[in-house]
């Protein structure tokens, strides 16, 4: 990286952004640990939970990234009608609220789901989704879209000139262009998904079929909400950070440095690959991801009529929080990406490893002496959602920012285009597509997140996901499904607007 040779930007914004992340992740953990009174050690059941957590996260991440490679390649080299819409829709599972996604998955793969109904019709035995494979299936459902997006961006970032040159020389594209790109992107994508699966809890329990599928996050929940044992929660959260740290070290060891150089941003034209095989991969991925999503829509439509008036103000709240938190995320991500380096990479993974329960509790302990928590419910939600979405935004933006610095930094320094002018004139226009993507992703993630609100919630300031849970808690399952549908639709719309906005006049 050209960072050290070229002081073209001040470090202050990156320091501020980094400080916010560290306070919200490690700071909250310390706040919880300090509150500890008794604190018990880890028992055999906890170690069983650690083993299960790591095993399922490893398999889930491997399969998500493994399947994403052919799907992303197919999407990168084929042009077809509705391709952009399909790419947007394929991103939906990642931003679904957990409970909505689980009910959607069960409507397809459950006992009375579409799959088993079809199997029964042709006389085949029932397939059970519950168990280790169910946990993995759900995690692949959530994370395949994310892996696909990361890889697709990697593919689209290979300059068109390289493909032309390869075509002219009749050189193997796979080995010379795609393999080096995968060596750069795959370890990071694997790491992110591994860590996401590491902190999973409700999905793992429900689809895992029982206490065998106990994760570390469940133990943290039990310690905080049920036993009120902050010491134990902090200890478990440390274990979770430790696992993430090991994963991060391994991922960084094996990841390569981008060496493809720059191009003139022409549209990539591909001639290689089998149309049929690509078609099959795209169809399979679309079926796997869109079938549960259609069930969510289908079940939700019936509930739309039953929605209580309380839903509408909660939508306004959720959307406002999502917009604020999305801009905050992208601002922080840009500040960190412009700085670059290993420390930034560490900061970029921290929020993934943090338990949202510990973050919420720690933050509560930190601000309670000064402010009435309920007054801060929405600002806190926005700040925490922004931080939790940061890793994804950073991962989307930083390769493009690094490439811009690498390719144009010297020229800019020579022309004395530095500081804000450098960001405004060179970086932002060049990273506009990932910036839009990051903005959309952060907004959508914020819409669906319940994370920390439980301790801060104000009876009259519920967000849309909280309203949905309240409906479920009051037996109103149909209305809850309707609220779930609204949540999905609004999240996708926010994502689409931002993602599209970043792509206007960009041929990718």
């Amino acid at each position: 990286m050209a960072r050290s040779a070229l002081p073209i930007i001040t470090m202050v914004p990156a320091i501020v952004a980094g400080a916010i992340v560290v306070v919200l992740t490690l700071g909250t953990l310390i706040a919880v640990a300090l509150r500890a009174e008794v604190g018990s050690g880890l028992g055999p059941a906890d170690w069983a939970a650690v083993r299960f957590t790591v095993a399922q996260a490893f398999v889930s991440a491997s399969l998500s990234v493994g399947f994403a490679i052919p799907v992303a390649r197919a999407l990168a080299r084929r042009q077809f009608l509705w391709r952009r819409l399909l790419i947007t829709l394929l991103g939906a599972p990642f931003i679904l609220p957990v409970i909505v996604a689980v009910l959607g998955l069960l409507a397809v793969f459950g006992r009375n789901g579409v799959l088993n109904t079809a199997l029964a019709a042709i006389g085949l035995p029932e397939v059970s989704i519950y168990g280790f494979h169910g946990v993995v299936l759900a995690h692949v459902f959530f994370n395949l879209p994310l892996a696909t997006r990361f890889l697709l961006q990697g593919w689209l970032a290979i300059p068109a000139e390289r493909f032309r040159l390869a075509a002219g020389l009749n050189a193997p594209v796979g080995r010379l262009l795609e393999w080096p790109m995968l060596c750069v992107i795959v370890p990071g994508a694997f790491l992110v998904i591994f860590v996401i699966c590491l902190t999973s809890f409700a999905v793992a329990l429900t689809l895992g079929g029982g206490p065998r599928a106990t994760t570390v996050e469940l133990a943290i929940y039990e310690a905080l909400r049920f036993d009120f044992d902050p010491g134990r929660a902090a200890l478990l959260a440390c274990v979770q950070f430790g696992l993430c740290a090991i994963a991060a070290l391994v991922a960084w060891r094996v990841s390569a440095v981008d060496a493809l150089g720059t191009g003139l941003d022409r549209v990539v034209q591909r001639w290689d690959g089998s149309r049929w095989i690509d078609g099959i991969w795209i169809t399979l991925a679309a079926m796997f991801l869109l079938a549960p999503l259609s069930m969510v829509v289908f079940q939700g439509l019936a509930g739309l009529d039953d929605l209580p008036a309380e839903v509408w103000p909660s939508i306004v709240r959720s959307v406002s929080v999502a917009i604020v938190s999305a801009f905050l995320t992208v601002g922080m991500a840009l500040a960190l990406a412009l700085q670059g380096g290993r420390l930034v990479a560490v900061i970029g993974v921290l929020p993934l490893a943090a338990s949202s329960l510990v973050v919420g509790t720690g933050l509560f302990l930190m601000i309670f002496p000064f402010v009435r928590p309920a007054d801060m419910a929405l600002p806190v939600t926005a700040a925490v959602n922004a931080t939790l979405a940061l890793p994804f935004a950073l991962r989307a933006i930083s390769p493009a920012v690094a490439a811009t610095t690498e390719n144009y930094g010297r020229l800019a320094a020579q022309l004395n285009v530095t500081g804000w002018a450098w960001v405004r004139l060179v970086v932002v226009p060049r990273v506009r597509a990932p910036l839009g993507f990051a903005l959309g992703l952060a907004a959508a993630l914020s819409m669906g997140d319940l994370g920390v609100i439980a301790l801060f919630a104000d009876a009259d300031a519920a967000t849309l996901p909280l309203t949905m849970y309240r409906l479920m808690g009051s037996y109103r399952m149909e209305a809850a499904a309707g609220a779930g549908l609204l949540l999905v639709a609004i999240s996708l719309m926010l994502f689409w607007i931002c993602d599209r906005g970043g792509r206007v006049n960009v041929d990718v």
Partner: protein
Amino acid sequence: MQKTLLAVAGLMLATPAFADGHANTLTVYAPDYFGSEWGPGPSIEAAFEAQCDCDLVYQTGDVLPRLLLEGENTEADVVIGLNTDVTKKARESGLLTTHGVDFSGLTLPIDWTDDTFVPFNYSHTAFIYDNTKLDGFDSFDALLDAPDDVRVVIQDPRTSISGLALVLWVNAVYGDESEAAWAKLAPKILTVTKGWSEAYGLFTDGEADVVLSFTTSPAYHIIAEEDLTKSAAIFDEGHYFFVELAAKVATTDNTDLADQFMAFVLTPEFQSLIPTTNWSFPAALPADQWPDGFQSLPVPEKVLFYSEEEAAALRDEAIEAWRAALSQ
């Protein structure tokens, strides 16, 4: 960018004046479902405000964790919606005080004399099934002996209060044989969920045939949906008692108002709002004053219940029996 971040940081650290301490505001900490539009909160608030000349404000969320985190600086005057499995911890914190409410009007199936906690509604843990698809079960043994293709969904005792009530229920019925009982139930358990809502959602979606819920659950379907197909299986061995409680916070600066609210909890006005908003039996209202759908609900003859001391002593053992049998 930098300015925006600083502005946001400033916003987060800003210190607005505490709204606490208004003589006429009663702050009540309540669970989420309680304060929502379709929960009991709003109608109770209206009824109380009509007689107290005050402003009742709910703070919803995790009641006890929040109270314990805040300690003596809590803003709460009253907490409502606690369960018996957390009363020990709440009592030992010293944050709650005695209520002085007259219990002569209580209509609970068990004797209640607690000087700190006032019960406001109750139910019993029960398995709910669709009576058009299953014949039902008249005993716990019958459920354990049911064919393995009957799929049951329960809640995790480590994360859910109803799940915890279930393991205590099994312990009360089977004692030392609990693990064997769980082993018999294990093949029928479709899955275990984090909370009640997820499990009940699986049941209403048709994914599970039987769900762990409460004897009062069918009342919702009967009254709100005119659906008579959901029944609670009533077991000969008895059902575990499930009660929700209110308590006065020791540090309240609105003692009179808090006392007034605690007394209000057991009045017919409050109690008559409970059945069709919280879908539970009122704690102090004779059965003939319950709504129609409730009067006809089958109730267990035998009620099982552990005191908070017993429950605390048995909890780890009961959960371990569950975990061991279901982890096979």
